[in-house]
């Protein structure tokens, strides 16, 4: 089965983001295809490079990066939702005169067209949050 996932929940306000992660990882382990995860609304908080929770807490950003490296899942962060919340990619950070970009490894920034494409290509589209 070919899945596309949308994550709208932040890592800290609920366990919804972690549920999404668990679902995706399990699906991949069972040889399903999860070809894109689209982070929208508060979900973009999963992609902040400098998020550094205490070591004994859940490291969501790290988990996503590892997932992207291991399974080549396309992790896409919505550009308008990201900029609204202060998450800038390389180009945009330069344009705004910032010293560094904020996007964690394994994620990329793109537009809502990527969400729509994912919903169109998938057998199943699932929204978390």
């Amino acid at each position, binding site marked *: 089965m070919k899945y596309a996932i949308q994550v709208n929940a932040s890592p800290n306000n609920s366990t919804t983001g972690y549920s999404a992660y668990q679902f995706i990882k399990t699906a991949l382990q069972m040889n399903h295809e999860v070809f894109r995860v689209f982070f929208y609304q508060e979900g973009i908080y999963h992609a902040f490079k400098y998020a550094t929770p205490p070591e004994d807490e859940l490291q969501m950003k790290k988990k996503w990066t590892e997932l992207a490296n291991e399974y080549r899942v396309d992790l896409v962060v919505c550009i308008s939702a990201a900029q609204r919340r202060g998450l800038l990619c390389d180009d945009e950070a330069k344009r705004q005169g910032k010293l560094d970009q904020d996007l964690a490894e394994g994620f990329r920034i793109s537009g809502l067209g990527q969400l729509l494409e994912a*919903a*169109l290509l998938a057998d199943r589209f699932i929204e978390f949050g």
Partner: protein
Amino acid sequence: MKKFLFILRNPPHQGIQLQEKLDVILTTAAFDQKVALLFLDDGVFQLKKNQQPEKQGLKDTASIFNALEIYDVHDLFTEVESLQQRGLKPSDLTLPAKEFYRKDINDLMQQYDVVM
């Protein structure tokens, strides 16, 4: 082309949530997909007449729903029970929405490829 049903069940001026949802709806419609909206629970307030969100520094989202017609989005649905529980009548809404009883909502959803 797929058929998309967007479920709106939150009140209109809860931060920017609705605005972000509307961005997805308009993008989907702009890509020539079949789009329908279903207003459930507190979501029925999104179509309530005489909102004044500017006073809270928020955008007038009700007027964006009026613009949906330009994008060929004509299928607006709502739930009888949701309206009744909130003391709303169809005439309180800015746009005409087709009413469904709760028992029929499941069948309605089944008609769509993607429910968002």
